[in-house]
């Protein structure tokens, strides 16, 4: 039988040294930001029941989940997302708690990507959820934290992009089109040619106005000038009100951050669709996909059978952030290598401990030979070697 004991499954990888340090560094930095703003950390199981992720309102594609069964034959999934488990906690252990509530997480999610796509199936995500806050305030706070996360790449070109899928949702309701993935994908991929083919049927009817607006939606992206263009195109009082609200958030964010880093895209929609208002993405140069993704989800928690609680949150892709900054991470060599001669092993350990306590990085040499210890230190880039115990005359004579 063929054995696969020397490789890792496609989409997963071992992280060694610098790569590992880059991953942990990115994670720790984000944790630091979240903790310093009063967020509380939660850890949810990697293994959950499948139903958490798949029902009418929370449809993560079943093809993209890793599934297995428990001993009763119930279907389980490796979590493909952290927001849904947190919504589950809100409906159970945190039900009736004081709101607003601010949570953060830093854990792996699992997605079954098409093979040979070169994408990660195991992704470390760090993110926040602001639950039960007032809309304007919590949207702005979530965005400002996302901007802070993007600031970690100070030297790179970054963009934080705002959208609101309310425009899309309103227009397809107006047109009487069912909100299914095929339509969302056309908008999301800015596929104007196909969208035009789909909407042609509405031209020349009383729905032409809405069809033209939907067709124009994917093109409404860029800097602040988008708002004027959108105002000219979107001719419904509901949409104008939504646009004014988004503009307010945009202006507030521009006041906080460098304005040239903030953009708008009214054609932003998500494939997995639990968002109900503002959505946003973070991009950095050198990475072909969004590194931050988030938005408002006011009906998701209610879908777990409790009263609706409004919420907003985002997740940052730590794999991507680490890959982008990896070049800059250099592992620090230990300050001291401690070699203990025969008969002085406990003294060696003691010495090593006291060095470590004094704040140095002290590595205990686990080999027997002193010369080998010196070569080892050289290969590791350690400049100081502490040899413990007196030279043994007998050993030398040999």
């Amino acid at each position, binding site marked *: 039988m063929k054995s696969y004991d020397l490789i890792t499954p496609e989409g997963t990888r071992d992280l060694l040294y610098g790569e590992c340090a880059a991953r942990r560094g990115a994670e720790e930095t984000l944790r630091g930001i979240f903790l310093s703003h009063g967020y509380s950390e939660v850890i949810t199981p990697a293994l959950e029941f499948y139903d958490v992720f798949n029902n009418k309102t929370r449809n993560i594609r079943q093809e993209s989940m890793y599934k297995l069964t428990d001993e009763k034959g119930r279907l389980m999934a490796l979590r493909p997302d952290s927001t849904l488990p947190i919504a589950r906690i809100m409906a159970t252990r945190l039900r009736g708690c004081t709101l607003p509530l601010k949570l953060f997480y830093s854990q792996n999610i699992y997605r079954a990507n098409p093979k040979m*796509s070169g994408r990660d199936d195991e992704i470390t995500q760090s993110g926040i959820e602001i639950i039960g806050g007032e809309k304007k305030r919590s949207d702005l706070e979530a965005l400002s934290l996302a901007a802070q996360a993007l600031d970690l790449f100070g030297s790179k070109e970054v*963009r934080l992009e705002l959208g609101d899928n309310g425009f899309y949702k309103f227009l397809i309701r107006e047109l009487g089109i069912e909100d299914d993935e095929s339509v969302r994908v056309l908008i999301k*991929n800015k596929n104007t040619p196909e969208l035009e083919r789909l909407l042609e049927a509405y031209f020349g009817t009383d729905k032409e106005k809405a069809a033209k607006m939907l067709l124009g939606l994917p093109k409404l992206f860029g800097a602040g000038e988008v708002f004027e263009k959108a105002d000219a195109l979107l001719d419904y009082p509901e949409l104008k009100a939504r646009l004014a609200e988004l503009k307010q958030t945009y202006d507030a964010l521009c006041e906080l951050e460098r304005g040239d880093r903030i953009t708008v895209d009214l054609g932003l929609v998500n494939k997995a669709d639990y968002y109900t208002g503002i959505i946003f993405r973070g*991009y950095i*140069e050198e*990475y*072909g*996909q969004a590194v931050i993704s988030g938005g408002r989800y006011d009906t998701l928690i209610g879908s777990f059978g409790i009263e609706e609680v409004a919420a907003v949150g985002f997740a940052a892709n730590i794999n991507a952030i680490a890959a982008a900054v990896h070049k800059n991470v250099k592992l620090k060599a230990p300050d001291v290598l401690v070699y203990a001669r025969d008969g002085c092993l406990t003294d060696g350990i003691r010495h090593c401990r006291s060095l470590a306590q004094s704040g140095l990085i002290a590595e205990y040499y686990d080999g027997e030979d002193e010369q080998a210890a010196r070569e080892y230190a050289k290969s590791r880039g350690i400049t100081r070697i502490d040899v413990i115990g007196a030279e043994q005359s007998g050993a030398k004579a040999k």
Partner: protein
Amino acid sequence: MNDSKNIRIALTKGRLEKDTAALFEKAGYNVEMLRNKGRRLIIEIPETGIEVVLAKAADVITYVEHGVCDMGVVGKDTIDEHQGSFFEVCDLGFGKCKFALAGRKGENFYEGFGVKTIATKYPNVTRRFFEAKGMDVDIVKIEGSVELAPLLGLSHGIVDIVETGTTLKENGLEVYEDVSPISARVIVNPVSMKLKKAAIEKIVAQMEQHRGE
């Protein structure tokens, strides 16, 4: 990702590449180096900040998806078969043909209750087409001339690209049903679209402007 200020465009080698070069020429670009490229795979278009990469159709999608090329020109057939996440911003109108379901002339494909076997080079397109009809079919992947399969009795029909229909006719086959239209499309990496918006929109606008000529 392609982080230079240049715009890197992946073209599908062969006819789409020639048609796109003609389009660029109409738009006033100097395409001499693209025409006389020899064996080079990366070609610069002088004074435009555009770099052209020549690749096989499916690879155009891969390069754009990963962002190492900012945009690409590829047939809708390849997009439908491989899919992926990128912006599909413009229909160039050339490379026109269609996916169609075909089989032996004069036979009724939908007759009978047996599960049908379909031979194709495009299993994903075929699967989606029959899934939408709620029809179970067996799909056999063929690499070469798919027309052989129904003639040899391997399949009841084929799903393939049909341009003029001459090959079908000469082999005693006919189109039963159109599956979907095909033409050349411009695709763009989502992050490139956001970070290099002005440059990319300019190129797309120029292509759109001259595509009908």
